[in-house]
């Protein structure tokens, strides 16, 4: 009985993450058959980098050709458009995208891909504070760890949705997630990890899905 209660308490504590999603829409999403969406990470800042695994996570959750959302993987798209979507050369504003479209080979390739929306995600997940300590020792009688550690993580992401065909900003959304992880160690360390980045990804993917195909139930990919 004690074990069951202990496991339930641990499970409850490990889910300690809050996510806040904000949204600003200028137009409703409209995806026709054959249209595709590209999700790209901003990498121009020298202080942080939007994690490629966050971009993959949002893309994987959003990609659903049966429902009409076809997502081109970031690496495939950036390679196909080399060198125009590298950190140094990527268009920062819609005006720069117009300039890029003056290069016939670039325009042709984007049209071949059927790109309707380009979603730029900017932000990162960082450890904001940590406390506690864990000591481990090894001896002839065996080994073990004792102590307690805790750390807070914060995710802060903003997504800008560009309508490639109409050359306009369709909307913006942000996902802020916070969570605390714990690591009690009584002989064996037990990590209770708050999946902050993963929860930010889920929140942002669900919001993007509602934006791109309004009126459809949110995809529940795990």
């Amino acid at each position, binding site marked *: 009985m004690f074990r069951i209660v202990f496991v339930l308490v641990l499970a409850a504590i490990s889910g300690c993450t809050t996510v806040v999603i904000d949204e600003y829409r200028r137009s409703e999403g409209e995806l026709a058959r054959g249209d595709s969406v590209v999700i790209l990470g901003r990498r121009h800042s020298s202080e942080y980098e939007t994690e490629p*695994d966050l971009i993959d996570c949002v893309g994987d959750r959003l990609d659903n050709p049966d429902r009409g959302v076809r997502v081109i993987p970031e690496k495939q798209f950036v390679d196909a458009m080399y*060198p125009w979507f590298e950190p140094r050369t990527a268009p920062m504003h819609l005006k720069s995208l117009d300039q890029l479209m003056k290069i016939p080979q670039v325009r042709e390739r984007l049209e071949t891909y059927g790109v309707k929306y380009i979603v730029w995600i900017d932000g990162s997940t960082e450890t904001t504070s940590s406390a506690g300590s864990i000591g481990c020792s090894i001896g002839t009688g065996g080994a073990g760890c004792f102590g307690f550690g805790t750390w807070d993580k914060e995710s802060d992401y903003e997504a800008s949705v560009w309508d490639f065909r109409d050359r306009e900003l369709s909307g913006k959304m942000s996902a802020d997630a916070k969570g605390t992880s714990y690591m009690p160690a009584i002989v064996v360390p037990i990590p209770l990890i708050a999946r902050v980045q993963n929860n930010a990804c889920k929140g942002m993917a669900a919001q993007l899905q509602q934006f791109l195909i309004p009126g459809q139930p949110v995809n529940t990919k795990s």
Partner: protein
Amino acid sequence: MVFPRNGFSAATKIILITAAVFTAACSHTVRVDGEYPAPVGPQHPLTVGVYLSEGFSNFTYREDSEDRDNWSIDTGRAQKNLFGQVLDSMFKKAIPLSQYPQDLPDDVELVIVPEVRELQFTMPRETGVNIFEVWIKYDMHAYDQQGDSVADWVITAYGKTPTAFLRSREAALAQAINVALRDAGATLYTGFAQVPELKAVLARKQRSLSMKEAEETAD
């Protein structure tokens, strides 16, 4: 040095093995093997020779300062792939040269020779930011058919990669170098026509092509 006849004693062996383990623990080897995409865009109407010297194609950076661990970073193969790929796609025709200036093909209008000037990197531990960073500086040279210098310019490339749980420092640094090499390719492609001397060469070539076309139309 005189070695004992029956080989090293057990104690000496232990000391040597321990020393080898400690030395290995403080030295790191990174080999970057990148494949890079061909640039999308217009080609310059020139026939160029591309000479990637032995030193460039086998370039290895060695860090052996007292303040840091020893690093051996082999970027030769990756940068050979990158420059070969980008220059091949940038021009109407690019001819790889195995030697220079001997046996230069007659139709070559410009010979491009890149050299590595310097490579620098920083670790998250040194900067306090959870990012591995790499800077590579290339000296670029362009020569005409007679071997006279046409232009010298510099390409500065930057790459970074965030730290990730359980990924080795070597793998993270290799990824940052790959990003820097892609950046070098992007700068080479987009910046070539911005170098004043090369801009003049391209303008001359464009003019001669236009005149040739006009003559052909008149005939």
